[in-house]
């Protein structure tokens, strides 16, 4: 157990971490991630980039749902806006990629403000359904705004080069994804240390009490939508770079459910949990593939025939099982383990 550990100044209270051990591990993890491309195959790298996109999406959704308590079933819509904004600016207008990425985030944030306005009057499930409605409306708009979005034909995303490097494949894509993910996580971590983050948590815990304490609900709820969607938009832009071809079908309802499953699995409201949940769930299909490869005979086409269904069922089972047995998620399990060992042998 940590002893003699007390906080003497406000600065210590809001420090990201005051433990050298935590900083050490974070540094080691960072170095490992920097060196990873030299150790794994191209296929492995693709998986890791997908996991990065998932982490960005989950961390961003966690700001909105986990910290501010605004349940959103419209993440797929926001992701679509980010991906399309990036693709259109990049391929059709030929803007450089360092400009289109933030522009995609900003465009998504602007759209989310439109979605956020009803959230000022709605709570809980009504809001969830409204965001769901918005994601359908966005998909519909993309499908029918053909001059801008190429409608059902989709867009080929090309021309993302920086310093002569092709950012859409291999190592450059990996480092871009790594950078954006780190920025997202750091932004989310630092957000919780500020007045804004504390206001969000107050709104989640009791919005009327928060208002009575002088928190401007309109401002902070809209801010939560905008900030969260900015990063979802970035994630969408990254996704479009990785996929190289996007159409509306990529952004189905299942993505929104996946994102919610990630933060529930990780532990609602915790940034580390969102990261864990996203990594776990985005590698789950791969684990399923390996599992089916092991247990079923090689000629069986069961898995390849029903890959989407099996994946869907796995998500569903994960959501249900965690809510029932481990409502605190993976991060809760981690805390239990830590407490057990630090109190050992006095733990019961």
């Amino acid at each position, binding site marked *: 157990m940590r002893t003699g550990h007390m906080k003497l100044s406000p600065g210590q209270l809001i420090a990201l971490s005051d433990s050298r051990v935590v900083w050490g591990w974070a540094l080691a993890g960072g170095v490992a991630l920097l060196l990873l491309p030299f150790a794994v195959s191209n296929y492995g790298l693709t998986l890791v980039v997908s996991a990065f996109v998932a982490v960005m999406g989950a961390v961003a959704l966690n700001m909105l749902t986990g910290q501010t308590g605004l349940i959103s079933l419209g993440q797929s819509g926001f992701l679509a806006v980010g991906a399309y904004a990036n693709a259109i600016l990049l391929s059709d207008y030929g803007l450089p990629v360092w400009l289109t990425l933030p522009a995609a985030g900003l465009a998504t944030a602007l759209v989310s403000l439109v979605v956020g306005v009803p959230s000022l009057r709605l709570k809980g499930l009504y809001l969830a359904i409204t965001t769901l409605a918005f994601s359908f409306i966005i998909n519909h708009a993309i499908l029918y705004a053909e001059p801008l979005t190429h409608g059902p034909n989709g867009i080929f995303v090309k021309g993302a080069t920086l310093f002569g490097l092709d950012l859409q494949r291999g190592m450059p894509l990996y480092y871009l994804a790594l950078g954006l993910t780190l920025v997202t996580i750091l932004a989310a971590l630092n957000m919780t240390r500020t007045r804004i983050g504390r206001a969000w948590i107050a709104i989640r815990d009791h919005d009327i009490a928060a208002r009575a304490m002088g928190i401007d609900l309109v401002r902070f709820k809209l801010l939560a939508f905008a900030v969260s969607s900015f990063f979802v938009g970035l994630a969408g832009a990254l996704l479009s770079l990785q996929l190289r071809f996007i159409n509306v079908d990529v952004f189905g309802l299942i993505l929104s459910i996946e994102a919610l499953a990630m933060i529930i699995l990780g532990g609602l409201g915790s940034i580390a949990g969102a990261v864990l949940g996203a990594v776990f769930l985005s590698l789950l299909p791969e684990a399923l593939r390996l599992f089916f490869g092991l247990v079923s005979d090689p000629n069986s086409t069961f898995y390849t025939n029903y890959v989407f269904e099996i994946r869907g069922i796995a998500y569903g089972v994960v*959501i249900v099982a965690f809510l029932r047995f481990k409502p605190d998620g993976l991060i809760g399990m981690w805390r239990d383990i830590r407490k057990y060992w630090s109190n050992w042998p006095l733990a019961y």
Partner: protein
Amino acid sequence: MEFFLLLVSSGLVAGATYGLIAIGFALIYKSTGVVNFAQGELVMLTAYIGFSLSNSFGLSFLPLLLLTIPVSMAVGLLLERIFIRPMLGEPVFAIVMVTVGLAVILRGLTIIIWGSQPANFDAGIPVTVVRLGSVPFYPAQLILIAALAVVVLAAWLFLRFTRYGMAMRAVAINETAALLAGISVSRIHALAWVLSSGIAAVAGVLFAANFKLAPDLWFQGLKSFPAVILGGMDSIVGAALGGIVIGLIESLAQGYIGEGMREIAGFVVIVLVLMVRPYGLFGSRNIERV
């Protein structure tokens, strides 16, 4: 005028489906406070159960419906036991997310069991066109609209006059007080799921008989949300009316505004409605105390 009447008739038919599904939503919401995101999947599952029953026994319409409803009710009870009952006492958000998970599971299972190809569901309803005035209807369409009326009437009578109906309303008003009065709240919750699955069976079989039976039938559940919101989540009659209104709006928007409006007109309407009246048109307004 002819065109308008045609749009109205197709709107009524679509609206009756929405109404039936929305009543299922409302029943569960009313007594358990949970929005059942798996309602559309229940409708799909029960439609496929009806399809299998019809294939193996070759029943005509009414016996088929009378057989499908109890089977579906049993399935509903089973799902409630496995997925919802263990969550009793957990926060509403957690239970709602369980229904979301349940929805994804049912969607996958249905495709794995019955395949992803659309099927023609012959429910034993004649296909001769009936003319009401100048508007042609298929008998299946008329049966669908009639079924909505029957279900609304039955639900209203049940809630108004039977012992269990009254208990259900009591639980809806105040769960703790109902518990104190000796009502088994968990039994009422199970009953809500059973009844809701029965209504889902009516909706599923009739929808499949009218349109087609395909694994994207669950989407009708999401498309019924506008009807539920418009009806105010906890009102049976409101849900039925909401369904009809949304069906009409979608059909007219498709006809007069443009292609594809059928898919989103309902969602646009609820976003607008919720901005003005956050509790739906007929919903009861919650006054929050701190």
